[in-house]
């Protein structure tokens, strides 16, 4: 009798084992499935006078094979990989905007500057002027379109963030529901393997979006925490996340993750605490990488535009008018803050710009620090008046209303420069190619003085460019006009400067003369070569002085000065013509390092996943072996029943007549 029982029990146990092996084989390619093994347990022996007689085998439980530590590690590594790979992908897109070569923005800028060389050689040629103005228009259009592409990338990033957050919220709700089911099922005594697998898979999916820390609770539920401390899922309750503008800098375009607990205003999460996840990667891309790309492009536009405008406004057009600005650029940019302070930033020195955003951090209502966000360099100021005297990286910060202690104000000086740059001059006659001043050597000069260059610089400003006085032949004695440099051969060779107004005034005496070194007076600069004899003179006059007639229409000194802007260092030690190359290198380096970290985290994630599946993945060969094993046991158990039946039959047969 008991043999039949033992056999029946064994049969059932082996049947369960076979079914479990079959369940594993069926789910070999199911993601997140942990293989299940049957745990067999021997039934307690029956006490008899001859000893404890075994009663067979029983299935104790179906064990889910998984390693808690490896599962958690694999999920985290997957989270970091998602963050790095989404950032690398977006940076690759950003890099496409800064592409080099003969069709790039850099080549367009250089073509625009090089076209001025034709104007220098034929100042009266309208075609050459037209070519320059057309190329200026084209460069402005290309800057606008690059800025447009940047904006598009930002738009798609924002959209991706929104849809990611929607997915996160839905996953959190699902996890909360599964938590409840698991808690209920725990009461039954056996572990709900499939629900646990489902929850692990959901958590893994959630980690792809935003990294969460798992803390299991006593009732079988798992609490998920975002940014280290915010409870996203607790028991069967899920809280919502959302994406919004940074609360400290409304309207600045910076995005932050918000945690929306019901009944409480949303709390902003610091993105440095977020860890991995594609949301974290996208936020980092939007707030730092995209901002740097925009600043690089904007600084290029501001630097080139402001310098060219300044030089154009020093020169004379073909009609003898002072030049008008070539490009439209913002005069000032406002600061964004959520406090009481109001401020803006104006642009003063176009050769000192740094491609960075700036923050004013108030220590008291009027004093604080200006921090350059690209590298953290801080400049302290004591009051709004003191701040207005400081020139920081070519910018001047103006506080019109005081702030409150602890307030922060974000300035993005270069964010809209490239998107809004327009070419303003269309008529070729309005290109200010002529110098506002001209130079004449004395006819009695016996030395070898030659004119190297003459240009208006407008430095120092104030007072800027002061034109030499006009000649006035009506006076007695007649005023000759102009500023005269008289040389003394020495050695050492020196020169005196005389302002030939009426009456004449001496501006400088006994200045040392170095051939080829620029002589800067009253906002214009002259370079002379050769060596003078004593008494040699050079007269610099006002080009619009009637005594010179229309000689200025054939002069291209200001166009030469514009051409010379190519070699002015304005982008962190790079000249104008090389500015784009260094921007390419900067974005390229960022992309390259993002690609490297993406590759590294990819390798780490795949290694950890392999380790996890080494424990909980199904191996078909192993399951095949187990099938054979349990099939044999089943056959043996079936044989046991047959033997039991035979025994019974023999017994019945022996007893019956």
């Amino acid at each position, binding site marked *: 009798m008991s043999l039949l029982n033992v056999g029946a029990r064994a049969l059932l146990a082996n049947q369960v084992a076979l079914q479990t092996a079959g369940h594993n084989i069926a789910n*070999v390619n199911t993601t997140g499935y942990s293989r299940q*093994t049957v745990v067999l347990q021997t039934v307690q022996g029956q006490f008899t006078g001859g000893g404890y007689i075994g009663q067979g085998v029983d299935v104790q439980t179906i*064990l889910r*094979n998984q390693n808690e530590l490896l599962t958690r590690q694999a999920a985290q590594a997957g989270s970091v990989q998602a963050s790095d790979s989404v950032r690398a992908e977006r940076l*690759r897109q950003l*890099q496409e905007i*800064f*592409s*080099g070569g*003969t069709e790039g923005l850099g*080549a367009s800028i*250089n073509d625009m500057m*090089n076209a001025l*060389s034709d104007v220098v*050689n*034929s*100042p*009266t*040629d309208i075609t050459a002027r037209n070519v320059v103005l057309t190329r200026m228009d084209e460069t402005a259009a290309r800057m606008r379109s690059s800025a447009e592409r940047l904006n598009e990338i930002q738009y798609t990033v924002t959209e991706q963030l929104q849809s990611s957050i929607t997915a996160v919220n839905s996953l959190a709700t699902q996890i909360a529901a599964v938590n409840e089911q698991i808690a209920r099922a725990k009461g039954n005594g056996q572990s709900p393997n499939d629900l646990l697998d489902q929850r692990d898979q959901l958590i893994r999916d959630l980690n792809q979006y935003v990294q969460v820390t798992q803390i299991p609770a006593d009732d079988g539920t798992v609490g998920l925490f975002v940014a280290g401390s915010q409870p996203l899922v607790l028991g069967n309750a899920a809280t919502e996340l959302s994406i919004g503008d940074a609360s400290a800098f409304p309207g600045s375009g910076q995005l932050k993750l918000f945690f929306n607990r019901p009944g409480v205003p949303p709390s902003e999460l610091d993105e440095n605490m977020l860890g991995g996840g594609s949301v974290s990667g996208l936020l980092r891309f939007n707030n730092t990488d995209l901002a740097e790309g925009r600043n690089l492009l904007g600084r290029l536009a501001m630097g080139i535009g402001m310098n060219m405008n300044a030089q154009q406004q020093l020169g004379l057009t073909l009609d003898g008018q002072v030049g008008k600005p070539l490009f439209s650029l913002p005069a000032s940019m406002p600061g964004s803050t959520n406090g009481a302070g109001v401020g803006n930033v104006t642009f003063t020195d176009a050769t000192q710009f740094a491609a960075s955003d700036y923050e004013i951090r108030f220590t008291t209502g009027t004093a604080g620090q200006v921090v350059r966000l690209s590298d953290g360099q801080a400049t302290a100021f004591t009051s709004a008046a003191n701040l207005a005297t400081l020139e920081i990286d070519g910018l001047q910060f103006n506080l019109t209303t005081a702030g409150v202690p602890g307030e922060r104000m974000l300035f993005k000086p270069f964010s809209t420069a490239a998107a809004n740059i327009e070419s303003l001059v269309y008529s070729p006659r309005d290109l200010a190619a002529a110098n506002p001043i*001209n*130079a*004449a*050597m*004395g*006819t*009695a*000069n016996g030395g070898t003085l*030659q*004119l*190297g260059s003459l240009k208006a610089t407008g430095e120092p400003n104030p007072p800027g460019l002061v034109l030499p006085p006009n000649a006035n032949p009506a006076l007695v*004695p*007649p005023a000759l006009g102009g500023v005269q440099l008289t040389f003394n051969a020495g050695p050492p060779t020196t020169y005196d400067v005389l302002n030939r107004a009426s009456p004449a005034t001496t501006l400088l005496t006994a200045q040392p003369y170095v051939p080829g070194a620029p002589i800067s007076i009253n906002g214009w600069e002259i370079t002379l070569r050769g060596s003078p004899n004593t*008494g040699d003179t*050079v007269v610099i006059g006002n080009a619009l002085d009637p005594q010179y*007639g*229309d*000689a200025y229409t*054939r*002069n291209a000194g200001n166009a030469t000065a514009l051409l010379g802007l*190519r070699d002015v260092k304005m982008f962190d030690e790079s000249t104008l013509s*090389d500015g784009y*190359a*260094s921007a*390419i*290198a900067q974005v*390229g380096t960022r*992309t*390259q390092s993002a*690609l490297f970290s993406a590759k590294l985290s990819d390798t780490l994630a*795949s290694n950890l996943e*392999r380790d996890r*599946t*080494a*424990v*909980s*993945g*199904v*191996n*078909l060969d192993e399951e*095949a072996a187990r099938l054979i094993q349990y099939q044999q046991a089943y056959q043996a158990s079936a044989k046991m029943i047959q033997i039991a039946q035979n025994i019974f039959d023999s017994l019945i047969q022996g007893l019956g007549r």
Partner: protein
Amino acid sequence: MNNNIYRVGTANMYENTLRNLGTRQTNLSNLQENLTSGKRVVRASDDPVSAAQAERALNRLARIQTEQRALETQRNAIAQAESSLGDAVGLVQEARQLLVSAGNAALSSSERATISNQLQSLRDQLTAVANRTDTNGLPLLGALGSAQSPFLGPLGSTPDYLFAGQPGQAASNGVAIPNTLDGDAAFMFDATRDGSFHAAITQGTGTVIAPGATTASVPAGAQPNRALTTSPITVTPGFVFNEDPATGQAYSYSVSFSNVTLNPATNTLSATYNITSTDPAFVPPAAQTLTPIKIGEKNEFSINGVPGMAFKITATPTKAVDGTITLSPADGDTIGIAPNASLFSVIDKAVNELRAAPNSSLASQAAGQALANVDKGLERMGNIRSFAGELLNRADRITGDQSKRSIQLEADRSRAEDLDMIKGISDFQNQQVGYEAALKSYSMVQKLSLFNFIG
């Protein structure tokens, strides 16, 4: 619970293989992109430093092309300027020959008129040559800036020729030469720099001493031919002449002769001369005497007292058969010394004086003065012309330098971003073989399973 460390999940095994296949395939296609584009650095992230180097090299190449184009324009302008100066030198040399022939005492006044007409036409051509422009309408000799036609004249006022521009020469630099020459230095004169003065003789009326008299008197009939000429005026080197602020030219002087008396004892003449000037700062010296002036001989005297200048007069008084002495110098003879504003002025003065000369003495005076100053002008034109030649040589040297630099920059760019084809092809083939091996092993491993051997 399983503690076996030699386990691998089947699904994960396939996933890893797929990932590796994907990686290899991506590498293969990247290498293919490199091969087809010929570039090692296709995107900046492949090698940011090399990408920036290649971009900078491209910029510099474009700049060299621009500079060379500008140099061609400048070279054309200077070549045209040099050939204009060559034409001008030719014209001035023809004028010089005419002036030499005009000094011949045997010419009649109508012959002199013919010569002066030819000189006039040469001077017109010279002005046209000096005012030539290049293909862009810029005056070739416009110096540092000028009116559309830099040489103005003949003007009715003093000076009679003006350079309407800013004199001076623009310098060359490492990549460019100037595109104009200093026309003021070529054609205009400056008193201090060049010392070009013209002495014109105005004849007085008291030109004879009647027989028996000792002082000059006006002849009854026509004025006789008299031989009074001056030498070319030599200027003290380095002397600085005062300039009239109204005209910008040096002041003019005049030497007037008077008190010509005959000393019957020695049969010689004596004359006194006074020097005046338009310069308000000039202190006229006392009257000076020329003595003895031998009759019938050629006398040479130096004229002193004109600041900065020295010249001689050659006077040949003659005695007629009847005892009338034709004086040289005579009462009222004046030598007017004026600065020449330009080479054109010199020729113009020669034209006017030759046409108006009543006798061959004045004609040879005009020709002699003009010849000396024309030589000064030729020297200046020659200087500027050789400077233009040097500029053209310099342009050639610059072109040589620039093409060397271009080659170097192209090599830099290529080194930074181009693919070494041999290495690229060999890498590609390595990758291809590796990819093939991965594919084959995948298909073979996949066939191995315990299920193949169970029943």
